């Protein structure tokens, strides 16, 4: 008789707790995710290494089109601008540019990236508190939109007038109370305190600047669409005041970003997928507020949106592997993964969904997930229910497309490759994994330190 061996799974035993569960029950993640857009996780890891970031172009485009539809079916003039800081890998930016997005940048470095990607100057929005004199001159002469953050920047634009070949096309960033905490008041000019109106007066009475719009960005991971309605109402009031006072019709209102993705914030009782408002809810709040503000049809401003996180988060996956299992002193199970907070920066504020990439039985156990860094802070999940993973088993971390590929740290380990799976399910490397040489080439060794004896 031919005997076949059974599939092995680590033995587990756990106490049945009665009366401790919350009313939603415990959440288990033992349903394996073995493929991403038709590509086997195991094949992707074999080809590109572990860990590796994977982005789904199909999901990026579908998400963008959903957001675009939500706004364009409610408001006549809508323009998205891709938030470079959310994910500025050039191939990712160009997917958004192909969908019609402008570029929204917050540094000279990001501005240069947008230029290199082929974005026309007039379609670049230059935000942020740090714009050097040289960067401002370049951007203004390039016809870009300058969103002024503070008075020093406003006066600097006045001072550099002799070096400008074009009138600066500017907007001011406005901060305000929208009823949510914390109110972001560190960027731009305050609405309630009158700073915003003062800044507008200064620009309107200046000859070398053309006030073309107003900008705000009320917060991040905003779970309350009504806060956008408050903001859009206040922005509209400012725009209508400009019209009344200076007979000037502003071209646009830029509502910034901050829409939540489907990630689960740490400490949240409800899963992110259930808590995050839809694009339709945000669009309804913003569009209704502007349409009801009192603009004539001809004066309705272009609505610009700089949403980043909500457009890219779900398209991103991090594939990784188990390094080891151990038992902590208090009896808790711990699993060490080969990716940590160095490349999964968002695990500081999200309980990321993590699923195994191979089939398991029905049993699971509570586990602490650690990263590979020799640092105590390297915790990916303080507590997650997973099947009994063993060394080299593979996992998929979900909803990691936003911020991780820009905020990641070259700390202790090298950063992994990033792969984009195209619309035909073909993978492409869009950022090579780092090598010791790619880090070392930026360092210099003074001659007197080259030799030593130990």
């Amino acid at each position, binding site marked *: 008789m031919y005997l076949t*061996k*059974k*599939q*092995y*799974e*680590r*033995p*587990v*035993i*756990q*106490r*049945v707790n009665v009366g401790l569960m919350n009313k939603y029950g415990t959440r288990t993640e033992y349903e394996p995710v073995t493929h991403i857009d038709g590509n086997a996780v195991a094949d992707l890891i074999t080809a590109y290494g572990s860990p590796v970031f994977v982005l789904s172009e199909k999901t990026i485009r579908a998400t963008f089109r959903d957001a675009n539809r939500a706004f364009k079916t409610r408001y006549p003039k809508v323009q998205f601008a891709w938030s470079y800081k959310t994910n500025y890998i050039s191939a990712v930016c160009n997917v958004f540019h192909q969908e019609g997005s402008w570029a929204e940048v917050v540094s000279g470095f990001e501005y240069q990236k947008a230029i290199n990607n082929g974005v026309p100057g007039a379609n670049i929005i230059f935000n942020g508190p740090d714009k050097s004199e040289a960067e401002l001159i370049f951007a203004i002469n390039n016809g870009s939109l300058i969103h002024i953050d503070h008075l020093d920047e406003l006066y600097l634009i006045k001072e550099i007038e002799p070096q400008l070949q074009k009138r600066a096309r500017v907007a001011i960033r406005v901060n305000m109370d929208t009823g949510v905490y914390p109110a972001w008041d560190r960027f731009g000019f305050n609405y309630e305190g009158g700073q915003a109106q003062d800044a507008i007066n200064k620009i309107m009475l200046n000859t070398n600047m053309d006030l073309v719009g107003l900008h705000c960005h009320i917060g991040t991971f905003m779970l309350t669409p009504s806060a956008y309605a408050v903001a859009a109402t206040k922005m509209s009031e400012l725009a209508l005041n400009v019209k009344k006072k200076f007979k000037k019709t502003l071209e646009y209102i830029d509502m910034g970003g901050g829409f939540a993705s489907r990630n689960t914030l740490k400490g949240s009782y409800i899963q992110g997928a259930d808590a995050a408002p839809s694009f339709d809810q945000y669009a309804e709040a913003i569009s209704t507020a502007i349409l009801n503000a009192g603009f004539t049809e001809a004066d309705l401003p272009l609505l610009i949106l700089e949403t980043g996180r909500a457009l890219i988060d779900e398209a991103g996956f991090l594939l990784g592997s188990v390094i080891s*299992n151990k*038992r902590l002193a208090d*009896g808790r199970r711990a699993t060490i993964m080969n990716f940590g907070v160095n490349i999964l920066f968002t695990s500081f504020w999200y309980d990321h969904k993590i699923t195994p990439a191979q089939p398991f*039985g*029905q*049993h699971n156990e509570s586990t602490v997930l650690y990263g590979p860094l020799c640092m105590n802070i390297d915790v990916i999940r303080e507590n997650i229910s997973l099947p*009994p993973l*063993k*060394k080299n088993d593979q996992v998929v971390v979900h909803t990691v497309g936003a911020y991780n590929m820009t905020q990641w740290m070259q700390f202790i380990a090298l950063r992994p490759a990033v792969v984009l799976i195209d619309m035909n399910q073909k993978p492409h490397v869009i950022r090579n994994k780092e090598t010791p040489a790619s880090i070392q080439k930026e360092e210099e060794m003074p001659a007197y330190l080259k030799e030593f004896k130990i």
Partner: protein
Amino acid sequence: MSIKKNIAISESGFIFDPSTGNSFTTNPIGLEILQLIKEGREQNEIKKHITAGYHVDDNTFEKDFYDFISTLQQLKLTVENEKKND
């Protein structure tokens, strides 16, 4: 080391400790190991039995076995064997 005599183990992997009122669940391989321990099998015998029946190498099983035993001890499901008189 052996499993406490009054522990009830069902065929589906449900375990009940009448002395504390605690109940536990285990996966099929955990159940198999528990039953082997209860039958009085030694560690080496258990290892041979499992590695013969499952796709697992000796080292992997040894690590997992020690972890499983330490969990059983922590859950107070075991008793130390009495020393035999010489």
